[in-house]
């Protein structure tokens, strides 16, 4: 398993134009599979337009303590892109005035941003309805400075959404690195201990499952049932919901697909599982994604592909929700990942 990002390894696929070349070429350019645009045109949804903004997702930096094989951010300890306090202040201004009901902090490991706690304290004051932090769990056990995170999250009524690829050690460690499973279990137990994830409690703890390989996630409800049973029986762990998220063919997951000769089969599987109903609720239609340096994107995936919003408002410093909402969403073939089966978003399935 790699210990450095594609960027640090100077791999070709660290370049966004190289990824887009692959996504727009090959089996799509040869006409073997239809472009995503054609699918949208067939159902009268091209160009794809936003609905009301509901989620403001802020990526506070690409630095992470893990180097997961499937990471669409190409995050890792070597990534130095970190949101500054100045950009955070610009974000806070937007958070205080947004119509969005959900604030979603992601990374990297967002907790590794040196201003993370200050930012959470300030953002919590805005009284946004649902304040999510996407935590990889192991960060809570990575270093003493993070041991108090469960209490800190509780104090600010943060909704914790954590990655957990499987309820067995083998599959978890294969995707995310040796020792990740044990640390994640310990972190979940600590979150439970302060009141997170308990039935009927307000301190929300949801898990994110994404497949550890070149296949699509199965039924979210069935997976949630299996996860709940296994984690409770084996470790006494409780959580609220499981979000099944499809891996999108970009960045490290794209690199993996190509290296393991699974790319074509995976794209076939995504196109075959295309569900026009999922298009209605696809997350780019109710989300704005902000990068560490303040640029605006239709989603975190477009952010990683360097595809800024098609609007005259492109940066958080100029933020204007009305103007932003009047835009066409930028699409490519990676979008098939969000419309496969029951659909996929940062909040799990969409239908």
């Amino acid at each position: 398993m790699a210990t450095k990002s594609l960027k640090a390894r100077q791999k070709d696929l660290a370049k966004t134009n190289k990824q887009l070349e692959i996504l727009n070429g090959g089996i799509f350019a040869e006409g073997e599979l239809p472009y995503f645009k054609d699918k949208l045109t067939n159902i009268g949804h091209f160009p794809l337009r936003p609905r009301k903004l509901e989620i403001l997702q802020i990526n506070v930096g690409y630095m992470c303590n893990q180097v997961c094989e499937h990471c669409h951010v190409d995050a890792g300890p070597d990534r130095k892109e970190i949101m500054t306090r100045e950009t955070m202040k610009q974000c806070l201004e937007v958070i205080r005035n947004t119509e969005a009901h959900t604030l979603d902090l992601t990374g990297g490991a967002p907790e590794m941003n040196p201003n993370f706690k200050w930012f959470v304290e300030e953002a919590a004051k805005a009284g946004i309805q649902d304040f999510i932090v996407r935590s990889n769990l192991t960060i809570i056990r990575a270093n003493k400075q993070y041991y108090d995170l469960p209490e800190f999250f509780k104090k600010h009524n943060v909704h914790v959404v954590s990655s957990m690829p499987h309820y067995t050690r083998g599959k978890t460690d294969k995707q995310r690195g040796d020792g990740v499973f044990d640390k994640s279990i310990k972190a979940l137990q600590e979150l439970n201990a302060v009141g997170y994830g308990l039935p009927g409690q307000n301190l929300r703890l949801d898990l994110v499952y994404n497949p550890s390989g070149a296949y699509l996630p199965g039924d979210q409800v069935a997976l949630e049932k299996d996860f709940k049973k296994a984690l409770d029986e084996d470790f006494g762990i409780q959580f609220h919901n499981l979000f099944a998220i499809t891996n999108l063919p970009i960045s490290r997951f794209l690199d993996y697909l190509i290296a393991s000769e699974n790319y074509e089969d995976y794209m076939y599987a995504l196109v075959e599982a295309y569900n026009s109903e999922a298009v209605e609720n696809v997350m780019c239609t109710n989300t704005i994604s902000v990068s560490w340096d303040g640029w605006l994107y239709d989603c975190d995936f477009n952010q990683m592909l360097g595809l800024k919003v098609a609007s005259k408002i492109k940066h958080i410093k100029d933020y204007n929700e009305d103007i932003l909402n009047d835009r066409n969403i930028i699409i490519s073939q990676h979008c098939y990942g969000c419309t496969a089966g029951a659909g996929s978003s940062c909040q799990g399935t969409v239908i």
Partner: protein
Amino acid sequence: MANTYYDAADLRKFAKITEWSEELGNKFFDYYGKVFEEGALSAREKSLIALAVAHVVKCPYCIDAYTKDGLQRGITKEEMMEAVHAGAAIESGATLVHGVQMMNKYNKLSM
């Protein structure tokens, strides 16, 4: 055309069999879909049965399909291998139980 009897890419074309016999093809795929729905047995249990049978009938397409299906359902490799052994045990048992016929015949022919 590939110069081999099996081509992994042919699995994607499975639905095309309907083009040459629409009614029978559709009936088959409707039946197939219905069989694997949740019922008295869970879809997960049926997936493991399908994997075991796939090995017994030695169908490489079915093995690919139900290994992937199992992964999607979160079925572990240990569960998958036990299912394959269950199929293999029945298959070898089916061979070995004929040993009784051999014994019967042997005894009948021997003085």
